[in-house]
């Protein structure tokens, strides 16, 4: 029986077989790994992606919106539905990014050692980050596209300009995902995620102009909204979705989001190296 078992070829002599040369495209198999994992659970996740815009549009846009419109005539003359949904669009990208950048990343570091398995091959830290973050961007893009589609069915957007809000929303999500990757690589357990969730993500959700203009905030709180990425996404999305965008403002917001992503990338490279290359 064992005699019939084949044995893999011995190692090639260096001259006979060309070795696979590590190239600059090695982030792609990393991306491929995460996609393969995702294929096991995609159905449940896609269901959630449809449910979330439905709930938000019905409760905030239409439910709360009818009250706001009746008592205050909308926000600055704009129906509340049109005001709030572009903001929530940006905020949901933040939630999705947070969801994709915490447990899975910590798991790959601590529990299933996916990253360590990759690092034993020609893959390097940059490939790991680029490949995994590309996967996260795919998730944020998918969720955002579904959100826009579902919300549009309810007449949530005033203009086709909302299509430009798509890439900006993805950037908003990544402006959270990348720094959260950097943070996660410093964590031993999931305790830090609770702090992140309670003291950063939830307050941002509530106070970044998502539900009401930040002029309503006390003056000393406004600079906080300016620094954090969510307000930039919210403001750019709203300006686009309402149909008469302030393009210079949108460009400024985009530049800021890219800046946060770049800084986050440098931090992530540092914390990942510190954690994984010991």
């Amino acid at each position, binding site marked *: 029986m064992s005699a019939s078992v084949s044995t*893999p070829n011995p190692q090639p002599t260096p001259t006979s077989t060309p070795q696979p040369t*590590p190239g600059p495209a090695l982030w792609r198999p990393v991306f491929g790994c995460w996609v393969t994992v995702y294929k096991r659970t995609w159905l449940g996740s896609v269901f959630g992606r449809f449910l979330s815009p439905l709930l938000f549009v019905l409760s905030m846009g239409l439910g709360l919106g009818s009250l706001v419109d009746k008592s205050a005539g909308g926000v600055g003359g704009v129906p509340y539905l049109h005001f709030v949904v572009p903001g929530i669009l940006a905020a949901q990208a933040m939630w999705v990014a947070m969801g994709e950048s915490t447990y899975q990343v910590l798991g790959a570091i601590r529990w299933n*050692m996916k990253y360590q398995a990759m690092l*034993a*091959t020609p893959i390097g830290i940059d490939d790991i980050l680029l490949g995994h973050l590309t996967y996260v961007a795919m998730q944020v893009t998918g969720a955002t596209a579904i959100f826009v589609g579902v919300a549009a069915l309810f007449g949530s957007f005033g203009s086709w300009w909302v299509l430009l809000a798509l890439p900006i929303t993805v950037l908003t999500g990544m402006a959270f995902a990348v720094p959260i990757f950097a943070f996660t690589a410093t964590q031993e357990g999931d305790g830090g995620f609770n702090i992140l969730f309670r003291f950063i993500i939830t307050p941002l959700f509530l106070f970044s102009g998502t539900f009401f203009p930040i002029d309503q905030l006390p003056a000393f709180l406004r600079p906080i909204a300016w620094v954090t990425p969510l307000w930039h996404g919210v403001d750019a999305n709203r300006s686009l979705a309402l149909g008469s965008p302030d393009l210079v403002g949108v460009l400024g917001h985009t530049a800021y989001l890219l800046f946060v992503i770049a800084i986050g990338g440098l931090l992530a490279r540092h914390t990942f190296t510190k954690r994984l*290359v010991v």
Partner: protein
Amino acid sequence: MTDPDSDLLLQATGLTKTFGNFTAVDGIDFAVQRGESFGFLGPNGAGKSSTMKMVGCVSPVTGGVLRLFGQDPATHGPQIRARLGVVPQKDTLDEELTVQENLWIYGRYFGLSRSEVRSRATELLDFAQLEDRARSKVEPLSGGMKRRLTIARSLISRPEILLLDEPTAGLDPQARHALWDRLFRLKRNGVTLVLTTHYMDEAEQLCDRLVVMDHGKIVAQGSPRSLITEFSTREVLELRFDTDDHAHHGDAIAGIGERIEVLPDRLLVYAEDGDAAAAAVHLRGIQPMSSLVRRSTLEDVFLHLTGRTLVD
């Protein structure tokens, strides 16, 4: 500068690894030739894994010189890793994926095409005797199967050196023998093996040459046979007494054999002729609860060199 195609695949001089103030690998020297099977034998914490991680170019060298294929891991990490197969001490398989998906994904990390990866995976599933489990998830597999899969996975890039960190730790005897059989095949086909173990029988079975490590240092090196000849006698007489303390029995049998080791649960008498030593013990009127003559092993070498047993 070393010729990259020479038969000296791996060379370390004064290799050192520290974690903070703690020195895990303390200036060790070794070299491995193409086709050789080279082992690190040592107890828990000896620094075997730390050494293997440096050799695998995943852990930076703290001090000394390390060259693989004549290249420096600090500057050519990815190029060197492309030519290595790594079986880490702890499996890093994707448990929620299938057996074949694990092979496919791993092969892609080496830049191999999808079709190439698939054909190599089929061949390796056969080698690892996992064909019938190809489509099942990894998680429910037995420890031995997972280990065979890890070895199969490490071979997907057709490595020139295979690094195995405790390949059979925690497996039952049957699974270990199945695994040794696979490793023998590779060895016969000329794959260079570098492995660590704290099982002396594994070292004796698999290694042409080995170093004994303790507290980050190399305390002896040679072939398993030559180490036994150099540091032990041909035979060992093991005596057990019906007491908690074996130390005072040591005095009673002093002078018999070449050397005596006192362990908490038994006495070891090192002698060329174990039966003669047993007869001498009997002549002195000493009645052990049990007495057993066996051949010397690497365990005895280790005990002699460090005063401690390998596996406790």
